[in-house]
């Protein structure tokens, strides 16, 4: 009898049993069993998947490494080119800023004519403060011409060749320039030194000199044109038993960072040596 149940009834019974089991499972009655089973299945799938990905990586990696290395080399090359361009552009910007300042200075002082020159070297002797510029007699540069920047006086031409010249800085120990103090309305002599510090000597004891006072060339002696800014008085030393006051000067120009200078080409220094009295033997 059992074996002769109608086929449709068997199907219905099986369906009902399956639906009941599912209903019980969704209802949470088989929670422990289903979670154990799914945990096992997920674990197996995870293991298979990770092994597959690992094998895929191993098979695909050589192509990726080669392409990545090539791309990396290309990018590194581009980065170096861009860095070189940045440095070059920064240099140009610096030069342009300096030149713009020098042009402003020359416009503000139209009474002089200027020739721009680049500083290309320094005197090899550490005892001297000279620089070498890249303009010479071919450019109209002559010995004794003053050299300035937009900040102030740099020095004067000491020696000239066809396409270069040597400039004695005002900070050279052999340099002595006649100057005047703007507010105190007194003259003095500006001296260089071994270490490049500037000092003022021969300041009259009657002069009231204060720190911050502007130091300008006086034009006396004919070596420099008047009214070129040299620096500012930093400290004053006045002793009663000395004939003159002395002062230290903060130079207007940073002599350590000279790059481009202007030579005043329409100034001719006056040689007063023949007027100096010579001792009669």
């Amino acid at each position, binding site marked *: 009898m059992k074996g002769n149940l109608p086929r449709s009834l068997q199907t219905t019974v099986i369906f009902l049993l399956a639906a009941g089991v599912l209903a019980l499972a969704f209802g949470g009655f088989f929670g422990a069993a289903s979670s154990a089973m799914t945990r096992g299945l997920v674990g197996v799938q995870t293991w298979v998947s990770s092994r597959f990905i690992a094998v895929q990586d191993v098979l695909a990696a050589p192509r990726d490494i080669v392409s990545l290395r090539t791309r990396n080399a290309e990018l590194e090359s581009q980065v170096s080119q861009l860095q070189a361009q940045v440095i070059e552009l920064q240099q140009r910007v610096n030069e342009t800023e300096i030149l713009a300042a020098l042009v402003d200075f020359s416009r503000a002082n139209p009474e002089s004519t200027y020739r721009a020159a680049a500083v*290309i*070297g*320094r*005197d*090899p*002797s*550490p*005892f*001297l403060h*000279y620089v*070498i510029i890249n303009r010479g007699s071919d450019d109209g540069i002559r010995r004794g011409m003053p050299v300035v920047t937009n900040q102030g006086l740099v020095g004067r031409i*000491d*020696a000239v060749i066809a396409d270069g010249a*040597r400039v*004695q800085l005002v900070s050279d*120990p*052999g340099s002595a320039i006649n100057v005047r103090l703007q507010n105190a309305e007194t003259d003095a002599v500006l001296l260089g030194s*071994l*270490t*490049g510090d500037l000092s003022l000597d021969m300041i009259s004891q009657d002069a009231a000199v204060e720190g911050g006072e502007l130091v300008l060339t006086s034009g006396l002696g004919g070596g420099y044109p008047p009214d070129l800014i040299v620096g500012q008085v930093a400290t004053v030393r006045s002793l009663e038993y000395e004939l003159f006051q002395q002062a230290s000067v903060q130079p207007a120009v940073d002599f*350590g960072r000279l790059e481009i200078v202007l030579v005043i080409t329409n100034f001719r220094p006056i040689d007063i040596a023949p007027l100096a009295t010579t001792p009669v033997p």
Partner: protein
Amino acid sequence: MRNLVALPVLFLLVIVQTALLSRLSLFSGTADIILVWLAGWSLQKPVDSGIHWALLAAGIMGFVSHIPILVVVVGYLAVVWMAKLFSRRVWQAPLLAMFGVTLLGTSVAHAATLTALALAGTVLPLGRSISFVTLPSVILNLLLAIPVFYLCRDLASWVYPGMEAV
């Protein structure tokens, strides 16, 4: 003919000196690569042209610098003479000889410069000159001494092939 190598080498050194080393100062002292080079070159055993190199270097430096050429000649010839003297006395320790020649050569060259400047009317304070210029310059020259010595040795091996350098 082999001495012709002095021309490009010395011109290159003068360019390096004026454009680079003279801008790198320690206090007010700067290195003198030409003096150090002359010391290192004259210490090489096969080199017999140290005096010619010194005279050529002095000629170039006298042209570039405001220092009278005679002072430069005296300083550089003194370096070559000391190098030859040291190479005979301390030949087993060439680096020691290099340091000695650099130290004494710098001192002699600076003493000659100070004397010449004083005779020309620029009297520099001796104490400040030594402490701010000469001692820092000696230190910088000693720092240059080792690489320059080995460069000189390589150049000597190239210029005098088959002859043993120091």
